[in-house]
């Protein structure tokens, strides 16, 4: 970091850890946070997409490193990634628990292995990573934790097989509230972003080739008339990471184009 001028931007001077930076929302956040002056540390299971994100963040003049593959569902791997980031940059200011991997099937067909896979890679990961980051946030005098919920944690959808995903995301949302309670006295705040339907590499198949029911009952009903983009979520994450939201803790910001207002 020596020889660099002080960075401008809404996250100037902040060390921001983001999980799952190879994918759609994680990549958008990494690039945006780096552009706003954060020192970004990412990770992903896929080295190729992880490296691409680092290139794009740096191409914008930003500061980013990333490690891949990192299996955040393994507590030791998660702790190693967190501790290495804290050691390299002197601490942690922002933790964005974005990483996710899911498996879907109707409730009577979902295998136990696929249930556990989803809970492991959406909920256990938040526990492992936050547990490791906590002492660093405490030592820093506080920080901002951002968890990713989902509209799946708020509503069921008859024709979308989101059972394990809904459970995991509801778990993430509840965990946020407990981080608020346990973290307040350390200056740690925690908030949830609940995205609606966002067009990412993971959702591209169903958005590019929507089944008829999905088109009619979900896509056509989004009040703001389009699916979300990764940047729609990243900009809200930026707000929650920045000092502009320093007294917001325990909030759940729904970013869904108005879809869940309907009923």
């Amino acid at each position, binding site marked *: 970091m020596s020889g660099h001028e002080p960075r401008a931007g809404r996250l100037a001077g902040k060390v921001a850890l983001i999980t799952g930076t190879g994918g759609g929302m994680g990549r958008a956040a990494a690039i945006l946070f780096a552009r706003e002056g954060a020192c970004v540390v990412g990770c992903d299971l896929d080295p190729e997409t992880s490296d691409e994100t680092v290139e794009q963040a740096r191409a914008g003049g930003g500061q980013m490193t990333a490690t891949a593959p990192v299996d955040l569902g393994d507590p030791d791997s998660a702790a190693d990634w967190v501790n290495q980031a804290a050691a390299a940059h002197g601490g942690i200011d922002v933790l964005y628990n974005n990483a996710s991997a899911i498996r879907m099937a109707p409730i009577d067909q979902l295998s136990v292995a696929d249930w556990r896979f989803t809970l492991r890679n959406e909920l256990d990961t938040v526990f492992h990573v936050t547990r490791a980051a906590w002492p660093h946030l405490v030592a820093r005098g506080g920080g901002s934790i951002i968890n990713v919920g989902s509209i799946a944690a708020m509503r069921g959808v008859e024709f979308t097989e989101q059972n394990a995903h809904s459970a995991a995301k509801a778990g993430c949302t509840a965990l*946020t*509230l407990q981080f*608020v*309670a346990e*973290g*307040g*006295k350390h*200056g740690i*705040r925690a908030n949830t972003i609940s995205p*609606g339907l966002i067009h990412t590499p993971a959702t591209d198949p169903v958005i590019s080739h929507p089944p008829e029911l999905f088109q009619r009952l979900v896509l056509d009903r989004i*009040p*703001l*008339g389009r699916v*979300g*983009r990764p940047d*729609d*979520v990243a*900009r*809200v994450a*930026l*707000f929650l990471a920045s000092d*502009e*939201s*320093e*007294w*917001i*803790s*325990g*909030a*759940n*910001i*729904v*970013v*869904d*184009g*108005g879809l*869940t*207002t*309907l009923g």
Partner: protein
Amino acid sequence: MVAGRRIDVVYNNAGAVRWGAIDEARYADWAFTLRSELDPVFLTTKHAWPHLKRRGGSVINVASTAGLRGSVTNKRVAHSASKAGVIGATRQLAAEGAAHGIRVNAISPGMIDTEGGQELIADPAHPMHRIAASVPLGRLGTPADVVNVALFLASDKAAYVTGANIVVDGGWSAVLPGPAA
């Protein structure tokens, strides 16, 4: 209202309230509070609507954590009802506005240290002083804490956010009251 010009942002912030426990509050106090806190959201938004439709826009309604929670110390049944009404109206306005590019969101502040609040908590024995100690982030909010969220909601940074209710309360409504409360 300026004829022939558009409106981009409506910030429904104004309000006045009368406190009173359910067995003590007069109907006139209830009606005053609803008229002062809920009716303006309807009236202002209704008359701004044709102007908002010109190019789309952002309506921001100030609700409150009082619209989400009850309080054993703060006698506020009318205030809770009006603020919950603001939250409900926000969702419906979001549904009606979306096709016109009008986003509608609510902000729910917790305990904010404003001049109005100062009057309430001037008495050092007032429970509000204990409440600051029970806010997870350890302090009351400032007007800037709320304005920053309004600015965000008014901006294109919130382009995909509509029908939302952003709670700005230092974590207060996320947790059960702690030992200091």
